[in-house]
C-alpha cells in the first residue's frame, strides 16, 4: 500500500513538472499578451496544483500536509485573481487580441490577421 502511494505521488509530481515545462515553452512561443496569459495560467494552477497534490500524498497526515493544504487553497484562490487583473489592465490599455475570427468586426479598425492567406 505504501509503494502505491509513493508511485502515485511521483506520477503527480512529474506530471506537474511536465505541464510547467510545456507551459514555459508556450510562454516563449505565443504571439500575444492574452495567449501568453493562457499559457501562464497552466503554470499557475495546473502545475502547482499537481505538485502540491503529489507532495500531500507523500507526507501523510502531518503538520507539513496541513501547511501544503493551506498553500494549495491560497494558490487556488489568488492566482486566477492576478491573471484576471493583468488581462483587465491589458484590456483597459487598448491591447487588441489576435483572434482570427474577429477580422470582420467594424469596431476593430487597425487589425492585422497573422493567419490570413495573402
Amino acid at each position, binding site marked *: 500500500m505504501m509503494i502505491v502511494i509513493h508511485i502515485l505521488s511521483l506520477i503527480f509530481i512529474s506530471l506537474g513538472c511536465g505541464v510547467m515545462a510545456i507551459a514555459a515553452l508556450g510562454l516563449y512561443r505565443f504571439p500575444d499578451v492574452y495567449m501568453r496569459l493562457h499559457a501562464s495560467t497552466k503554470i499557475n494552477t495546473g502545475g502547482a496544483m499537481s505538485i502540491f497534490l503529489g*507532495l500531500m500524498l507523500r507526507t501523510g497526515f502531518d503538520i507539513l500536509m496541513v*501547511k501544503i493544504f493551506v498553500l494549495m487553497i491560497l494558490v487556488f484562490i489568488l492566482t486566477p485573481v*492576478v491573471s484576471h487583473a493583468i488581462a483587465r489592465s491589458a484590456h483597459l*490599455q487598448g491591447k487588441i487580441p489576435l483572434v482570427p475570427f474577429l477580422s470582420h468586426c467594424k469596431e476593430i479598425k487597425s487589425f492585422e490577421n497573422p493567419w490570413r492567406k495573402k
Partner: protein
Amino acid sequence: MIIFIYLLIGVAIFTLYRLIKGPTLQDALVALNSISIIFICILVLYSIQTGNPFFLDIAISFLLLDFVGMIAFTKYLGREGSR
C-alpha cells in the same frame, strides 16, 4: 526528488526570457507571476525533501506578498488611457 528541483530551476531560467524581452509591460508581469509560482514550488519541494517545515511558512508569505504586489501593479497600470 532533487531532479525535479533542477528541472524547475531550468524552467524558471527559460521563463526569464519573456521577463527581459517582453514587448509590453503585461508580458513581463505574466512572466514574473509564473516565476514566483515556480519559486514557491521549488521551496515546497525542498522543504519536503529535507523535512524542514520552515520553508513552507516562507512560501505562504511569499505568495501573499506576490499577490499584493501584482494587484497594486495592475491597479497602477489599468487606468483608462495609460500607456
